[in-house]
């Protein structure tokens, strides 16, 4: 088995919720999550809406604090954000006051990569996301799909060890979604990056992943890990593909049905 890139052990997250009038209550978002991702693997996390999958990703990005447990990237504990991880956000989060080029250069500057190398890096990654002509354009002039491609280029440009993607295609229309999924698989094939991808779309998960991690309802635990043993390129309408989709749908539906929450449920 290939080398483990990311190890998550007994991760636990409690949010303090301000109820107003000076009252606080705590909500357990993540109960006890264990997860391992190997070098070069593309893993998706899926689960019912509000199950804490984005919270998990934000903790791994270092943008939220964890309450207990540990997360190790190449053996180093994750405490706070860092340039060893690239993050792609659902809402794109491009800086509107910077051109496409300067958005990509942001991370390069922070990492201290010499400016003489910026040009070549920017060109390389813009070519990868097929946006070479848009180097000097401000983001507001781009379509949603193009914005997210810049978001991906920006997150890859400073060569992070791990790419974290938080429902990156969730805000896009169906056609753009499909074409970006293909583009991501191509990029992944080319760069062999380790990718952790949060989604709520079963089809997206089956199309992209080596493995699908199914989370339970809040407070989240890992319910099942499903290995997708389909050859690539994957055909969305093929019988085996649809069977995986069905299986995942069932797993998630079962999570939603359980009135009592996650605890005590048995998985197939």
């Amino acid at each position, binding site marked *: 088995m290939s080398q483990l890139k990311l190890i998550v052990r007994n991760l636990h997250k409690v949010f303090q919720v301000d109820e107003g009038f000076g009252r606080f209550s705590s909500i357990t978002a993540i109960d006890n999550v264990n997860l391992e991702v190997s070098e070069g693997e593309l893993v998706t996390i899926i689960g019912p809406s509000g199950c804490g999958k984005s919270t998990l990703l*934000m903790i791994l*990005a*270092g*943008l939220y604090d964890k309450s207990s447990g540990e997360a190790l990237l190449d053996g180093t504990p994750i405490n706070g*954000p*860092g*340039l060893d*991880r*690239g*993050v792609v*956000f659902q*809402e794109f*989060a*491009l*800086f*509107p*006051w910077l051109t496409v080029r300067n958005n990509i250069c*942001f*991370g390069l500057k*922070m*990492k201290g990569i010499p400016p003489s190398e910026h040009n070549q890096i920017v060109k390389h990654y813009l070519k990868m996301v*097929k946006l070479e*002509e*848009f180097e*000097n*354009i*401000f*983001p*507001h*002039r*781009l*379509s*949603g*799909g*193009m914005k997210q491609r810049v978001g991906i280029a*920006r*997150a890859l440009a*400073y060569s992070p060890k791990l790419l974290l993607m938080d429902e990156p295609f969730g805000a896009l*229309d169906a*056609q*753009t979604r499909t*074409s970006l999924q293909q583009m991501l698989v191509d990029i992944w094939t080319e760069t062999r990056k380790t990718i952790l991808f949060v989604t709520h779309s079963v089809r997206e998960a089956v199309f992209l992943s080596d493995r699908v991690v199914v989370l339970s309802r809040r407070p989240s635990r890992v319910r099942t890990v499903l290995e997708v043993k389909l050859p690539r390129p994957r055909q969305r309408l093929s019988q085996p593909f649809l069977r995986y989709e069905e299986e995942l749908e069932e797993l998630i539906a079962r999570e939603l049905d359980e009135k009592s929450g996650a605890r005590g449920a048995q998985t197939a």
Partner: protein
Amino acid sequence: MAKATEAAIPEPTSDLRPESRASPSYYLHAFLDNFIPLAFVLLLWEGVARLEIIHPALFPTVTEIFTKMWELTLEGIFLRDVAHSLLRLLSSVFFAIIVGTICGLLMGTSRWVEKIIIPPLNFFLAIPGIAIFPIVILWFGLTEKAIIFTLSFEASLSIMLNTWGGVKSVDISLINAGRALGANDYNLFYKVLLPAALPSIITGYRQGFSRAWRILVAGEMLASIGTGIGFRIFEARAFLASDVMYAGVIIIGILGFLLERVALRSLEIFTVQRWGMVREL
């Protein structure tokens, strides 16, 4: 540039628009659109004034007003008045921008500065600046300092409030993106928070400017400072020189319009509008 990018659109869903660039005929139309209604008002005025229904000393004709304006300009009086008023205004806005921006940014980034400043700020905002002018005169006498202090005070409050609001309402995802991209606190402030808050900050400058402009005229009247458009109008009252008063009011209108539309609007066009952070008009 716009042409080239349009031709290179790779997918049908993109919404690239060509750069909107105004042609000379656009400016001509814009000018005429504004000028024709104004010209109509002036003509009507001239007609009514010539009928002498109202006493000419109270309601002079447009020709008289513009003749007077021209005379005062030739004598150099108007130019000096305009220069002095502008100098007061600009130095006040300059101080207000420095104080207001710094305080606003501190309030937006530090919780306890925010807690300390917000209650008094809300209180002071409720006071029309001109109300404190007599007190300021007690401190500084009938001087430039009194006018500039009052104007700066008034303008800095608006700037502070807008800057604070701008920093507080910066999209959390931009802050997260900045942190994920390795920005430390310093870089997060200068390279993310500040530019992201710029639309509000510029709105604050515009508001501060127009509040200062309104008080300037009243301040010049009250301070009997000897120069300035406000003073000129007030002084003319003593001599019942209504043509001078009307001329002064028209000059104030033209100046305020030019400063707001030309100077401050340009700042907006070259920054936040170019970045698509505010809608184009």
